[in-house]
C-alpha cells in the first residue's frame, strides 16, 4: 500500500483543481490513480465481494460531488479515505438495522460459524492451516463487531495506518483514537473468549 502522505504531485494538483471546476475527465485520472486503494478499503470495511464495485462507485461519485470542499490540508488519499469510510460506515449501520444476513453461501455456513472455527483452532494442525483458521475467525468477529469498532480496527490492523493518520480520517484526536482502538480490541478479544466458553 502506498503511503498516505505522499509528496504533492503537480499533476495530481492539476487534476484536483480541474475536478473542482467540474472537469469530469480530470476526475477520471484521479479515479484511475486511487481506484485500487478505494476498492481495498471498501472491501476490508464491508467484507462483501459482490458489493465492492457498487460501493466503490458510490464513494467516488460522492467524492466528485464534494471535491470542492477539499482544501489540500490533508493528502488527497486521506480525504478520499474519509469519504470511503463514512460511506461504508453508513452502509454497515443500515445493514445492522436490518435482520442479520450472512455473506457466506449456505453450503459453507456451518463451517464458517465462529464456534466451528474455535474448535478447529483447538485441534492440532500445521501453521499455515492455523493461520487460515485465525484469519476466518477474525473475519467473522469483525463482521459481528459494532460499526465503530470495525472501522477503527480495519484502519489500524489491516490498512496499517498510524493513530495520527486514523485521527485525520475519522476527524478525531490521536488520544481519542487510542482509547477507541483499545476498547475495540478488548471487545473483540472478549467476544472470542466468550465464544470458547459458549461451546
Amino acid at each position: 500500500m502506498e503511503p498516505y502522505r505522499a509528496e504533492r504531485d503537480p499533476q495530481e494538483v492539476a487534476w484536483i483543481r480541474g475536478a473542482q471546476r467540474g472537469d469530469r475527465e480530470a476526475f477520471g485520472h484521479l479515479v484511475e490513480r486511487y481506484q485500487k486503494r478505494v476498492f481495498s478499503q471498501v472491501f476490508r470495511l464491508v467484507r462483501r465481494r459482490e458489493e465492492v464495485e457498487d460501493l466503490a462507485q458510490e464513494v467516488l461519485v460522492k467524492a466528485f460531488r464534494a471535491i470542492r470542499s477539499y482544501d489540500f490540508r490533508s493528502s488527497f488519499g486521506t480525504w478520499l479515505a474519509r469519504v470511503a469510510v463514512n460511506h461504508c460506515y453508513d452502509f454497515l449501520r443500515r445493514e445492522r438495522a436490518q435482520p442479520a444476513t450472512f455473506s457466506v453461501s449456505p453450503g459453507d455456513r456451518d463451517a464458517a460459524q465462529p464456534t466451528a472455527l474455535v474448535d478447529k483452532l483447538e485441534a492440532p494442525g500445521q501453521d499455515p492451516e492455523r493461520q487460515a483458521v485465525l484469519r476466518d475467525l477474525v473475519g467473522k468477529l469483525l463482521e459481528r463487531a459494532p460499526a465503530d469498532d470495525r472501522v477503527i480496527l480495519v484502519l489500524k490492523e489491516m490498512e496499517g495506518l498510524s493513530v495520527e493518520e486514523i485521527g485525520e480520517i475519522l476527524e478525531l484526536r490521536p488520544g481519542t483514537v487510542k482509547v477507541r482502538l483499545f476498547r475495540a480490541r478488548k471487545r473483540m478479544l472478549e467476544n472470542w473468549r466468550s465464544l470458547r466458553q459458549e461451546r
Partner: protein
Amino acid sequence: MRCEDARTILVEVEGGERSAALREHVAVCPACRAYANDLEGLRIGFRALAAQSVPEPSWGFAARLVRRLDVEEWSRGADFLEQVGRRVVYAAGLLTLLLLLALVLPASGPLRGPTASELYWAQPDTATLANYSILPDETLESRELNSPAPNSSGAKGKP
C-alpha cells in the same frame, strides 16, 4: 502486577515492547498467558486477513464512472430545464385564469355578497317548501296528482 493491569498493557502495547514486570507476570500467571496467546492469535488473524486478495476494479471502471458523472450532470441540466418549463406553464395558466376572472366579474368588485333585494326574493320559495312539510298527507297527494311534474307526459303512473 495485577492481572487486570497486565491485560490492559497487553491490549494497549504492540507486541515485542513488553516490560520486565509484565513478562515476569505472564510467565507465572497461566490466565494472563492464555490472554496474551489469544491476543497474539487476533494479530495473526488480522495480518492474514490483510494479506487476503482484494477485489480489483473491473476493466474500464474509471471510464464508466466518468460516463455516469456525465449522464448525471446532463440529467441534472434536463431536470433544471424541466422545472423552469413547468414554472412557465404554471405562470401562464395562472395568468389566463386571472384574465378570465377579470372579464367575467363586474368591474365594481371581484366578489359580491347577496344584496337585500336578492334575499327578499329568495324568501317565498323557502316558505312554500316549509309549508309542504306541514301539510297533511292527503293534501300533499292530491296536490301531486293535480299538478304533475312538467317533464312527465301525464300518462305515466296512472291506470
